[in-house]
């Protein structure tokens, strides 16, 4: 009798655990968005950069909340202004809907020319909440590499050059880990919609 009860209890427990696991698995499935949600969050490690106000921009700065990263440069006539404009429209949509607005950060892939002063003139022009970030070439390029961002310097006439760079946007949480990646092309309404559902989900998973 006791044995039979035990068998039933174990079976019930196993069944319960199974349901729990299934339910758990289902809730861990990310919402349908255009983003790539990383199974294993990517760790950017430690970095020591500077923002467009000259303040240190390091790992501790990410603890304030969610951050949406874009890599670009100011000597970029087409793609970077287009992306910053897109991010501005996205930010306005998020503000209108009352959703969490990630801090938008543009890390310069051209730190030789993009001084904090130059970024201060450039980045807030698109949205005064946006943060321009630069630093030593070594710091910037090694962070880019750890984040999977490709940066290639391409010579132009004379001493001029342009920079090919990954067009993806990265979303990091307050723990500083990269949780999701948006690949180009970016569309403001779609980005806003995706971020509005992704952040609450990522906060729970």
């Amino acid at each position, binding site marked *: 009798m006791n044995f039979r009860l035990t068998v039933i209890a174990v079976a019930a427990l196993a069944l319960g655990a199974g349901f729990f696991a299934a339910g758990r698995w289902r809730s861990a499935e990310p919402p349908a968005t255009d983003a790539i949600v990383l199974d294993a969050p990517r760790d950017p490690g430690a970095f020591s950069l500077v923002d467009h106000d000259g303040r240190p921009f390091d790992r501790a700065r990410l603890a304030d909340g969610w951050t949406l990263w874009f890599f670009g440069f*100011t*000597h970029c006539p*087409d*793609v970077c202004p287009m992306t910053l*404009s897109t991010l501005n429209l996205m930010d306005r949509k998020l503000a209108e809907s009352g959703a969490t607005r990630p801090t938008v950060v543009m890390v310069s892939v051209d730190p030789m020319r993009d001084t904090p002063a130059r970024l201060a003139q450039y980045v807030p022009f698109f949205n005064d909440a946006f943060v321009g970030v630069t630093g030593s070439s070594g710091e910037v390029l090694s962070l880019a590499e750890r984040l999977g961002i490709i940066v290639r310097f391409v010579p132009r006439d004379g001493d001029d050059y342009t920079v090919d760079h990954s067009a993806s946007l990265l979303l990091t949480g307050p723990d500083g880990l990269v949780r999701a990646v948006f690949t180009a092309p970016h569309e403001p309404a779609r980005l806003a919609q995706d971020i509005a559902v992704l952040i609450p989900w990522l906060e729970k998973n």
Partner: protein
Amino acid sequence: MLSRILANRGLVGAALFTAMLAVAPAALAEGPSVEITDAWVRAAPPGATMLAGYLTLRNTGDTTVRVIGAESPQFDVIEMHESMVADGVAHMHEVDGITIPPGGTVRLEPGGLHLMLIAPTQDFAVGHKAILTIAFDDGWSIEFDAIVSREAP
């Protein structure tokens, strides 16, 4: 070479374009039968060293036309470039011409073909106009205004 062509024919081209707005292109005996619409320049912060110009070119004639360059007194140099994203990486290359078949339309738009406006000689605030000239391989050119705007107007 380009400046010589423009010096020779720039004014004629500009006058033609004005005329084209008023009359049917078919009425023109010669010169590029090209309509330019939606011309704009992305607003950038004061001090920006490079801007991008966009426009739509429509070939209303019955022969292929080819744009071989652009210039403006308001910029040191204008180049024609194409941006693209390949394997997730944004890059840009210069193009030496833009060919528009008869009846065809080519759009210069963000993230694709654009005029790269290098070293502006003045600041361009939203609402200002840039005066640009595009040159064709047959020696003709068209001058047009491009409105400075944060987004495509």
